[in-house]
């Protein structure tokens, strides 16, 4: 290396920069990871607040609290915030913190780009959330922005479209960075098949993002030109087709679903072996299963559209392709169970969340299988059964994995053990209320209650009241999560480097808290 580089390198040995601008200008993967995670936590409460408005309105039949347009914009914004503002940034934050340490690299491959990927997010969400205060209110046509309904919005429409472009720029840059990091920054000698599964699942997720986010950008660009520039993409009178929007959107949308869950699979595959004190069962099959799920995600999109009118051959193809996904997913679930089989298991908070994930994500997976059956879906479509299904895969699925990861790696990040008692209370209270909240949605859904409507028939009243009680219980119990996190940041029992007795991986070889710069010299054990 040249002298200039050596000069830079000396500079590397310093800790973080002083003052608040440290966070604005940082190129450090740990700082940026922290920013992403805190951003996601804030958005979790904003999106959660919207969910509580929805559940408050649905506590009783009839219209009592909010007007229907605002209710619709709450369901729309709740989804956009939770998907793009909570789950995705949280996974990117975990990737930032953990991938460089897991592969023995010094940082992300493109640190400045990394800073930009994060610092787009607050601005993009400012753009999105500002629409709630505009003439005509926020977007109210559902997060999928189906044409022609979404084209009828007020002033908010163009802002929503651009906020999606804006977030998309962040996602694509972040994913490119992750791909480059994994391929180019691994410790010398570390092969792909030696990477922890979290790294593998993120590698595949990053490819999904690079492939489908631009398609979403294209779809919403067509919406924009249809509304403002007189094009006819989704207008049958001009030879276009509103259903075409749904095809393009779900070509993005279904891989997006796996973007929201594959990193979770990686997290669970890290945590279960640690607390079962056994290596992960079937590592290679886990990698191939992840790849298969990613591939299949590109050829199942129209199962979101069984009722819009498709040729019979299309319905059949998408039904069978969708069902095929349960094969690699089943491989994963059985591998996790086999990992626990005859292990010396202990049940610290991360393990509780991981087992909670395993049980409840599988419930969501099985209701997904029911929805995949075309003739059955024609009955279930647009009912609360669908709402129950995707909340079971997203809340005890994606969100639980993020919470499990937080408890699992928090001692590594802060150097302190979190409060185990309150962590366990958080798990149990959340789990009880979560099922009170989402399980009844199966019943009202099967009975025919439509989604996205602020009012409902009287026969659905009891279970809706129960679900609303669960919602407020679940929402407020998340304050325990915040309490445990901040208590752990402030202090507590000092964590060892290894933190967990059965933990395996490079991140556990560095001290806790992890120094500002790790692996400036690559670790030697792989070469």
């Amino acid at each position, binding site marked *: 290396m040249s002298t200039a580089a050596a000069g830079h*390198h000396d500079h590397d040995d310093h800790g973080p920069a002083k003052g608040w601008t440290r966070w604005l200008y940082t190129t450090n993967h740990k700082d940026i990871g922290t920013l992403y995670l805190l951003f996601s936590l804030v958005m979790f409460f904003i999106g959660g607040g919207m969910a509580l408005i929805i559940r408050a309105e649905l506590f009783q039949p009839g219209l009592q609290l909010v007007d229907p347009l605002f209710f619709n914009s709450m369901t729309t914004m709740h989804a956009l915030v939770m998907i793009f503002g909570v789950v995705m940034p949280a996974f990117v934050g975990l990737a930032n913190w953990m991938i460089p340490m897991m592969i023995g690299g010094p940082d992300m491959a493109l640190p400045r780009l990394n800073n930009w990927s994060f610092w787009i997010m607050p601005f993009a969400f400012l753009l999105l959330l500002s629409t709630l205060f505009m003439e005509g209110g926020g977007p109210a046509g559902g997060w999928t922005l189906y044409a022609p309904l979404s084209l009828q919005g007020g002033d908010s429409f163009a802002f929503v479209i651009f906020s999606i472009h804006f977030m998309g720029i962040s996602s694509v840059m972040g994913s*490119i960075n992750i791909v480059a990091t994994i391929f*180019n920054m691994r410790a010398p000698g570390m092969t792909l098949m030696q990477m922890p599964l979290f790294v593998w699942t993120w590698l595949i997720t990053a490819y999904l993002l690079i492939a489908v986010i631009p398609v979403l950008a294209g779809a919403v660009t067509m919406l924009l030109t249809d509304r403002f520039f007189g*094009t006819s993409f989704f207008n049958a009178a001009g030879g276009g087709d509103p259903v*075409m929007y749904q095809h393009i959107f779900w070509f993005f949308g279904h891989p997006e679903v796996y973007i929201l869950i594959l990193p979770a699979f990686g997290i669970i595959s890290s945590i279960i072996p640690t607390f079962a004190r056994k290596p992960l069962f079937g590592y290679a099959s886990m990698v191939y299963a992840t790849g298969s799920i990613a591939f299949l995600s590109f050829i199942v999109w129209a199962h979101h559209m069984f009722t819009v009118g498709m040729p019979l051959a299309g319905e059949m193809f998408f039904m069978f392709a969708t069902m095929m996904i349960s094969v690699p997913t089943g491989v994963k679930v059985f591998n996790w169970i086999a990992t626990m089989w005859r292990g010396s298991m202990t049940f610290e908070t991360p393990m509780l969340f991981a087992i909670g994930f395993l049980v409840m994500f599988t419930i969501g997976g099985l209701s997904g299988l029911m929805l995949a059956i075309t003739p059955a879906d024609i009955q279930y479509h647009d009912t609360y059964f669908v709402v129950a299904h995707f909340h079971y895969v997203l809340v005890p699925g994606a969100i639980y994995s993020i919470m499990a990861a937080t408890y699992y790696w928090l001692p590594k990040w802060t150097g302190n053990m979190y409060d185990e008692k309150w962590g366990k209370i958080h798990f149990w209270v959340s789990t009880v209320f979560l099922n009170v909240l989402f399980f009844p949605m199966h019943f009202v859904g099967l009975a025919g209650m439509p989604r996205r409507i602020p009012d409902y028939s009287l026969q659905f009243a009891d279970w809706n009241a129960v679900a609303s009680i669960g919602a407020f219980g679940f929402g407020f119990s998340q304050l325990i999560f915040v309490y445990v996190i901040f208590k752990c940041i402030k202090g507590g029992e000092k964590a060892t480097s290894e933190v967990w007795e059965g933990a395996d991986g490079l991140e556990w070889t560095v001290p806790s808290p992890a120094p500002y710069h790790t692996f400036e010299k690559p670790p030697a054990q792989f070469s």
Partner: protein
Amino acid sequence: MSSPSSYYIPHEAKWPIVGSIALFTFFAGFASLLNGGSWYLMAVGAAILVYMMVGWFGEVIAESENGTYSAQVDVSFRMAMMWFIFSEVMFFGAFFGALFYARTFSGPWLSGIGEGGASATNAVLWSGFDYVWPTNGPQKVGGSYEPMSWLGLPLINTALLLTSGVTCTIAHHAIKHGDRAKMVKFLLATCVLGFLFVGLQILEYWEAYAHLNLKMTTGIYGSTFFLLTGFHGFHVCMGAIILLIVMFRGTRKHFSATNHFAFEAAAWYWHFVDVVWLGLFIFVYIL
């Protein structure tokens, strides 16, 4: 994979936040413009964006010329450019997808061809509509028009762009042998061809609007025609500007036989733009 003894990590990136402010201003300004506001805010955003790009790229170029980067950084840059281009391919894929969908499915369905409700839809809603591509739909949105012929300007443009691919490759071979002067010469030729392409494209649009009554509002044909060729034209502009900057860097004695990532990134981008054009020429103009 490279095996460095130590790594290069940049510090204190000040340009990203400028970029975020720029994009925020640009998007908010564009949205207000579409809602009937003025264009000032959008222009300010665009100006900050240009300022950010000049500043950020300038910093990276200076670092590169000082020899700050290791071979490993070079690999990261290459991967980033490769996957960025892939994401662009997917962006165009959405619009090609719309074109294929409209031609294969919506058109025939609207005219009653196909199983299920197609014949009823035609009879009830669009009775008498016969589908032939190009179409502006059963309601003839945008009025009668003439489609753009592939002979004439598009054919000349194809020749221009393909030739520019060749000159670009000659420039690449030149710099690989360390011949900077030849690289600059052939890059100049590439840029001239590129801008000529853009000029002819503008002429073609003018002709479409003035003589053929072919507009963005001309049903699905006009929509796909202008969005596909428009986004492509925009990419040609970007690519030509990038090549122009690479050329000016060449005149300032940047690049060597071994260190010319920026050139290669620009060249990859140029070839990508070229390939997209071939797709357009075949599926939008000829077929």
